[in-house]
């Protein structure tokens, strides 16, 4: 079986100033329906293998301070 490719369609980024916030890390892990965010000891960790599962629900954008989470659609270059 060929290697799995990640982040082919979607790219997710969390600004450094909130990525270390335990409350945000917990919230992002809780809201994402496809487990893109992991609360790694109070830090936000992006689970690369799940990024392409993003359903564009915007729950992560609402869970974090405005502009702190970026979800980009690589196939058309737009950002949520």
């Amino acid at each position, binding site marked *: 079986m060929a290697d799995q490719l990640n982040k082919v369609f979607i790219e997710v980024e969390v600004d450094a100033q909130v990525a270390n916030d335990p409350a945000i890390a917990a919230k992002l892990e809780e809201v994402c329906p496809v487990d893109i965010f992991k609360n790694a000891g109070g830090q936000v960790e992006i689970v690369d293998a799940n990024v*392409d599962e993003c359903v564009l629900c915007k729950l992560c954008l609402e869970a974090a301070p405005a502009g702190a989470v970026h979800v980009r659609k690589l196939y058309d270059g737009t950002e949520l």
Partner: protein
Amino acid sequence: MRFFEFEARKIVELAGIPVTKYGFCTTPEEARAVAAEIGGPVVIKSQVLTGGRMKAGGVKFADTPEEAAEHAAAILQLEINGHMPRGVLVDPKAEVKQEYYAGVVWDGTAKRPLMLFSDMGGIDIEEVARTHPDHVGRGHVSNLFPIPDFEAKQAIAATGVSGSQLNRATPILARLARLFRENDMTLAEINPLAELTDGSFVALDAHMEMENEAVGRQKRLLRGELGIAEDDDREPYEHSKFEEAVAAIDAADHRGVIQGKDHGFTGNLGLVIGAGGGSLTLTDAVRNQGGKPANYSEIGGNPSVAKACGLAKEVLEKDGVEKIAVMMSIVSNTRVDIVARGVIKACLELGKDPGETIAIFRIPGAWEDEGEKILAKYGVEYCDRSVSMWEAAGRAVAKIQGAPA
């Protein structure tokens, strides 16, 4: 799900329908003991999930327990149409006065179970219906309300059966209809239903099939009463690597549903298809336009990207597959963009160009605009609902045959 005769006999018995004193055996010694217990002539029947037992030598008569053991030993080694028997059924050779047919089938048009009865049993009911239609009585029963005996009586009386025969056959057909509904059967058949020389009625042979989707909720019957193992899916052939791989991908992820079958498929066009009967329609549409499917599949229930990708990869990795056609009826909960991501990812992970590999992508419905954007980036033709399933299948066939699409 199909049942062996000995299991069907048990189901019939559990429903309160009289059966002969039979025994299921897996060794000649057991057959000898059962024959001795029955006493008198017996019949030994191979327990295989295929027809043509009698012609293949899988049904033999014995007058003594020793003869029964000898026949059982031979039948247990006898392969019939590629099937080795699960065991043998030892049954008394009944003194039959007349054979009848009693059956219940699912009427897909009426959406209700249909009782069938004939006073010409022991032969195919289809044959009787064709040659002697006046000897087949019919009657629908409710999906919801209790099934009264009189409805069965009407169906039987329509064949001209009357008197004590009518009175004795009526509860049998009514019970058969009840067991059909209660056990989620798609077919419940007693053929022959025998009237013995003493006037009693017994089921001499039974054939049952259960709706596959009902297996989960019929555990009491399947595991409890019949002792059927959970992994005993009764497929008439061994699963291919493709089928096993698709089943494993499906089981590993709760999101959505995928199925893949390739038994008997040897074509070059892989199919990633589904939605509301779409799989069967699309497979037929491909075949009827000269295409050669490499597999059958079903995808739906809003699968994850990984699951759609997994199915597409397995299809693409099958020997002889040149392109895949991704086609569904109209989807509502399954997202077009998620399936698009999955099949494109499958191509990329296998080092294939999606634009060349995906002959057509025809999935109209939820999130189709987003799906179209993804496909456009990778040069894959997207078809919405303005392209019929027939036309989409035709375009896929044309592409794989090298004709201008």
